[in-house]
């Protein structure tokens, strides 16, 4: 069995982002970048399945600028076998990403594709579902537990009401929640080994598909700031303020 894992390079989740003064976007110069957090869960889950012997090969793929390769290299250090980097200097919308991934899937023929459920930069939460639709595959979104069976996979999904379990046919798309597992750190020897693993270089232009963006960014601005509050010195004062000043209880 073969798993394709899609990873994305984003601003590190601990960085307080800064909106550019001209409103054209968010400042990414000299900002720490990392793998999108739930994409780490996607890689981890694939590696765990490989360790059980059920999976023979893991291929990590990313789409993005030159440095996006770092996310693939990290996936290789954690346990992916080889990588694919589809180079694109400009932002590709989830629909375009899904179209590129479809081409990769048609070539690689994986049994499963794992992705993070949402990227923490554009917060779209679309790519996995779109890829599933384009391939006519079933999807297990927001997965917090998976169990690979013969020809099907059971997926426990985090939904608003609690947890939902579905069973979907293979091949399938899984989008991973942060609670799916605890991503491991790559060991130094594995980081060294990963440097020798192959990353195939492709360009978004190589695919004969329409990935032109449909959504025009008009402006990016800071959200309205909350005005500073006060510190209260006791619980009694707090309850008094809530009752008589804020009038919310």
């Amino acid at each position: 069995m073969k798993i394709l894992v899609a990873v994305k390079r984003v601003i590190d989740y601990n960085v307080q982002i800064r909106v550019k003064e001209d409103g054209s976007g968010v400042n990414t110069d000299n900002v720490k970048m990392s793998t999108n957090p739930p994409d780490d869960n996607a890689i981890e889950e694939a590696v765990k399945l490989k360790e059980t012997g059920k999976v023979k090969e893991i291929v990590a793929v990313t789409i993005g600028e030159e440095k996006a390769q770092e996310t693939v290299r990290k996936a290789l250090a954690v346990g992916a076998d080889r990588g694919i980097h589809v180079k694109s200097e400009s932002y590709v919308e989830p629909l375009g990403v899904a179209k590129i991934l479809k081409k990769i899937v048609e070539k690689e023929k994986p049994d499963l594709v794992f992705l993070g459920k949402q990227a923490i930069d554009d917060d779209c939460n679309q790519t996995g579902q779109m890829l599933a639709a384009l391939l006519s595959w079933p999807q297990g979104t927001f997965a917090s537990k998976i169990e690979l069976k013969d020809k099907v996979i059971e997926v426990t999904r985090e939904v608003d009401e609690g947890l939902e379990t579905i069973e979907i046919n293979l091949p399938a798309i899984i989008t991973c929640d942060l609670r799916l597992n605890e991503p491991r750190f790559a060991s130094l020897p594995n980081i060294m080994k990963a440097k020798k693993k192959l990353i195939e270089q492709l360009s978004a232009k190589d695919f004969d598909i329409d990935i032109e963006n449909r959504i025009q960014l008009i402006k990016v601005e800071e959200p309205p700031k909350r005005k500073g509050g006060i510190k209260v010195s006791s619980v009694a004062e707090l309850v008094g303020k809530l009752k008589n000043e804020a009038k919310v209880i």
Partner: protein
Amino acid sequence: MSILLISEHDNSNLKVFTLNAITAASKIDQEINVLVAGNKCESVAKEVAAIPLVKKVLYCDSPNYENYLAENLTPLIIKLSEPYTHIIASANTFGKNFMPRVAALLDVSQISDVIKINSSEEFLRPIYAGNAFATIKSNDKKKCITIRPTSFDPAPASGGSAPVEKIDVVDVPNISKFIKREETKSERPELGTARIVISGGRGMQSGENFKLINSIADKLNAAVGASRAAVDAGYIGNDHQVGQTGKVVVPDLYIAVGISGAIQHLAGMKESKVIVAINKDGEAPIFSIADYGLEADLFEALPEFLDELNKLNTIQK
């Protein structure tokens, strides 16, 4: 212009977030048709028909739609989509699951998590966990949109009498199967719509200690929330999580207890009208957005809080 709005329900009752999505839709155009797809859900179709803003109900009844599996629901929406300019659903785990599937098959870029409608093609949406707002314009002919429900008031639910049109079932691909849903039943209000929310974080130290939060929640008729740290630590179920990857809440009063205020958590609650933070670390980032901050040990403050509430003659419900 005309709108196809996908309703969310449990086959007997409409879920309230559909009403919020209807309000958002009405800011685009008044021609709102609502799809009610489910199993033995005629009562829901009637409920939707009574919403004054709804012009027509499209009612499709089949066991295929009982658990709104995305693989089954999508072909139906695609078939119905032809005459509509906008397809809308709530940006919760219901809408997030199937809408991108619909958008991809229609070859349009979805607009996720809209918090403001500027025009029929221009929208405001949060990015980077709400640390930036993006104004975007969609150039697609047909627009697939998910609405952040808490950013819009619910539409009035009664007084209307829209016609109900029966829709034929569409073939389903038979590639997915529903097994079970584990819902946490609670007497308390729902997190997404509660007037007051009290949340606990890692500072609670155990699931057992959440009883301190629960007793205050009962007193205030509040919903109980939690930070991701508390959910990950197993103190409380995932359906309580507030934040970037959990629920977004906008209550009148949000009380954060033992929550430091990571960006991911703030994304889910910082639009609340009044925010209270109780934390023993005076430098915790949560204080920077709190209207009222109390620097105290929560294990002393919470019992005292309950005592003070008990002293009050009246408490708003």
